[in-house]
């Protein structure tokens, strides 16, 4: 258990989600193990957390105070981002599919934490701007829920801010303060760094090595949180694809080899987007596919001028033809159901090398290696971010 806790403590830190000294990671086996330095800094938090572990049938409990800019984003959302019943309700696919919504409690009271985590996968503790999550099978779940919650809150904040500016023209009584804080938060956000990238592993003749390298690079450049996204390559009738629930920076033992002709069901553990990948390869144009969740691409995909009757259904049936940086935006939900992206992404990739999925992420595809798909994803994310801030700045300047 200690090994598992330390592994995910490192990942939280490496992915910039929280510093080790701001994390309390409790692993519960036949005794409780603790990793992270938060309880050394704030020993009074120990008792309430231990009480939560005693009252919940779980195997891990994670309290983390995120790094900037998440810390300030949470502060902001707590000020103006809640629904009528006090929840935070991001509209991205991650939330819609897995988190549903994110409850908020005022302090680290065991009663409130137990109540919240008995209904949802994560909860925000208002008094410290921290996030609490848990796992029932492995500490990895707590890590994933933390990562997912941060991603969803990030998307919500930036999406809602621009939407707010568009709706109010930045002229209501809160605008000044909101814009000031936005500028402060915005300065902490950087586009993916293009410097010093060694592209050669992406062009390896060894498909496994190329996939492993692509996964590490996607995570390193912040184009996907480690647990999300997927990667595949097609060679000699076999689709090599990352497994479901795999961490993209750890794909060494998590690649399925799926016969294109469907003659083996070993792909039952492949990424949930296998049907989309397979359909793309069936069209014959591409042999390498990357799927990431770059944040500003996702935010941009959700910014729409149209006033729909039911915006809750945009994610799976948007009729608008929109684009970012010339890349089409399509709708579709995860998987192969009637609204699945298997119905939209392969069609779009017939005539282009990239397609964005509303509120979800982006697929980029190439013919020779992962190099071009990777560069394309970087380029689109940089453009989406620049375009986002250009639009925000326009409102700020107007005001």
């Amino acid at each position: 258990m200690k090994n598992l806790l330390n592994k995910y403590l490192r990942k939280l830190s490496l992915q910039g989600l929280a510093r080790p000294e701001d994390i309390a990671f409790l692993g519960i086996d036949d005794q409780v193990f603790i990793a992270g330095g938060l309880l050394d800094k704030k020993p009074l938090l120990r008792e309430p957390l231990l009480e939560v572990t005693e009252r919940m049938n779980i195997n891990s409990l994670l309290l983390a105070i995120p790094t900037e800019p998440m810390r300030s984003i949470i502060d902001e959302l707590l000020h103006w981002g809640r629904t009528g019943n006090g929840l935070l309700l991001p509209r991205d696919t991650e939330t819609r599919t897995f988190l549903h919504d994110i409850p908020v409690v005022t302090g680290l009271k065991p009663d409130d934490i137990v109540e919240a985590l008995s209904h949802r996968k994560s909860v925000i503790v208002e008094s410290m701007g921290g996030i609490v999550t848990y796992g029932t099978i492995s500490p990895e779940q707590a890590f994933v829920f933390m990562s997912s919650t941060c991603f969803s809150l990030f998307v919500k904040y930036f999406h809602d801010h621009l939407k707010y500016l568009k709706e109010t023209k930045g002229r209501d009584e809160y605008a000044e303060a909101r814009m000031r804080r936005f500028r402060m938060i915005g300065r902490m956000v950087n586009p993916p760094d293009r410097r010093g990238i060694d592209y050669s592993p992406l062009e390896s003749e060894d498909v496994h090595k190329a996939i492993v390298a692509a996964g590490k690079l996607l995570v390193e450049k912040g184009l996907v949180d480690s647990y999300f996204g997927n990667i595949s390559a097609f060679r000699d009738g076999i689709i090599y694809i990352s497994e479901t629930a795999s961490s993209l920076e750890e794909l060494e033992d998590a690649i399925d080899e799926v016969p294109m002709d469907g003659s083996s069901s070993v792909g039952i553990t492949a990424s949930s987007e296998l049907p989309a990948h397979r359909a793309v390869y069936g069209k014959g144009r591409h042999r390498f596919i990357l799927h990431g969740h770059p944040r500003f691409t996702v935010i941009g995909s959700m910014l729409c001028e149209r006033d729909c009757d039911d915006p809750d259904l945009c994610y799976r049936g948007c009729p608008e033809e929109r684009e970012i940086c010339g890349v089409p935006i399509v709708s579709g939900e995860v998987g192969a159901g009637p609204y699945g992206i298997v119905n939209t992404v392969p069609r779009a990739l017939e005539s282009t090398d990239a397609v964005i999925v509303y509120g979800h992420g982006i697929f980029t595809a190439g013919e020779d290696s992962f190099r071009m798909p990777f560069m394309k994803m970087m380029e689109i994310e940089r453009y989406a971010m620049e375009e986002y801030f250009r639009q925000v700045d326009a409102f700020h300047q107007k005001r």
Partner: protein
Amino acid sequence: MEGGYTGRYLAVDLAEQTWAVEETPEDLCNEFLGGRGFGVAMLRGHITKDPFSPDMPLIIATGPLVGTPSPTSGRFSVISRSPLTGTVFDCSVGGRFGTRLKKVGFDFVVFTGTSPDWVRVDITREGVVFNPAHELAGLSTGEVMKHLDKDLSYGLIGPAGERFVSFASIVFDGHYLAGRGGLGAVMGAKHLKLITVRGDGAVRVYSEEKLKKARENVMRLLRATPAIFGEFGLSNFGTAALVDLIHARRMEPTMNFRQSFFPDSGKYSGYRMKTVYDTKKTGCAGCPILCKKQGSGGEVIPEFETASHFGALNENNDLSSIVEANHLCNDYGLDTISTASTIACYSEIQGRSFSPEELLSHIKLIGEREGIGDALAEGSLRYAGSQGVPELSMTVKGLELPAYDPRGAYGMALAYATSNRGACHLRAYPISYEILRKPVAVNRFSFEGKARMVKISEDMNAVIDSLTACKFVFFGASLEEYAEVLNAVTGTSHDVQSLLAIGERIWDIEREMNRMNGFTWKDDNLPERFFREAGYEDEKVVIPPIDRDAFLDALRRYYRIRGYEESTE
């Protein structure tokens, strides 16, 4: 309760051929939910009785979601004491019987007593009708079904149940089985050949609107889960989709578990069965997955465990004989896993493998209790024990292991050992996270953290069996979503933790029942073979024997987590 339950149950006395409608106690619903939980609660006070005693109840129980538009709400449980293992025993069953029982107005039925002669029980809204069934005695389940109205739901036993085969099953609606543990023999001991139910009433739902939303949350997760709706998932290939995967992981029990790799399993893979038999989807009432597969010629396509055990476990690569073996087991009313495993044990004792024809002939002998079949009908443990080689029986608590070699997944190894009904993959179902990577992937070759994983999974699956939902749904959804489904149906305010507390209660009662019947920590063990012999080895994959000390350490942790005062000295 404001929905979900009918508030009534049937108590049927087969000896006196009388019945009574009783009120379903609200406390029972609150503390045990339904299904397995109801059965366990109703068995208290009876569990030390002989499984074949007239006083031993045989219970058929639905859960609160049955008969409603909740996803996978068509299941129910059959509960009694197993003549094979001596433990408390429940089977989760699909089909339409549970839905019909609920819709005719009953949450559950308790059968006690022994009918003086073979009897058929028809359950209607007005109550119970007893009909003589001596003309059905000796008939196979297939033959009996030919005489039944198509709009009836039914549960019946075949010749194996009538002859007290220790692993006789109860067959519901053609091919949905209360398969394991010999509950068909318990039914046979009561001279109960056939139960029918015809119900089409409505089951009340507390909030249709909340249920619609909760259902959509579940469905969205299922659509995002490759193991279910993926193109190689259960909906497309049935559970036989697992043949290729378990083969690739080198953990397919082969030659009575002497090896964990069978080169020929592709000959009965999900893909192969789908193409050879041109299968179509079928399944339980209210299920969107439809994991059952039927061939274009009406063949019932074997489940993964059946295919693997009549395949690799018996060194058989002949698909048609595997399909026929499945058919024969259904016709005789036999558990396919125990039947195949007992024959594999016999094969090892004999020192030779059987041809497909011999395999089929042994099934018939067991079903008829003729020749060697009479001894094999007692299960592999008793048979191997009678031959002086009990170690060749691949069982835990007398129940034969299913088709996941424990050397290939250590959580599964621990869960086989701690299971309250013997070697069962579904009590904790660690395959979900050790092999299928749901909800997260864990290291299958480590015991680290597994004690608590198994404990929580056992509690969770006790809840699922009591709801009575399908375990496959939980590859995608979680109790978080199902608590909302339950609350929408019943008007309760359950959450994940309150449900897990119910699961823990059910588990602990089952454990106590087993203790009352003499089970100790020594029964929480695996066959010696798994600690001594490797399953497979090549340059890429090694399936070594399980480290006994690590296993025992995990078991001790498990006891501490459960709060059991067991010594493993």
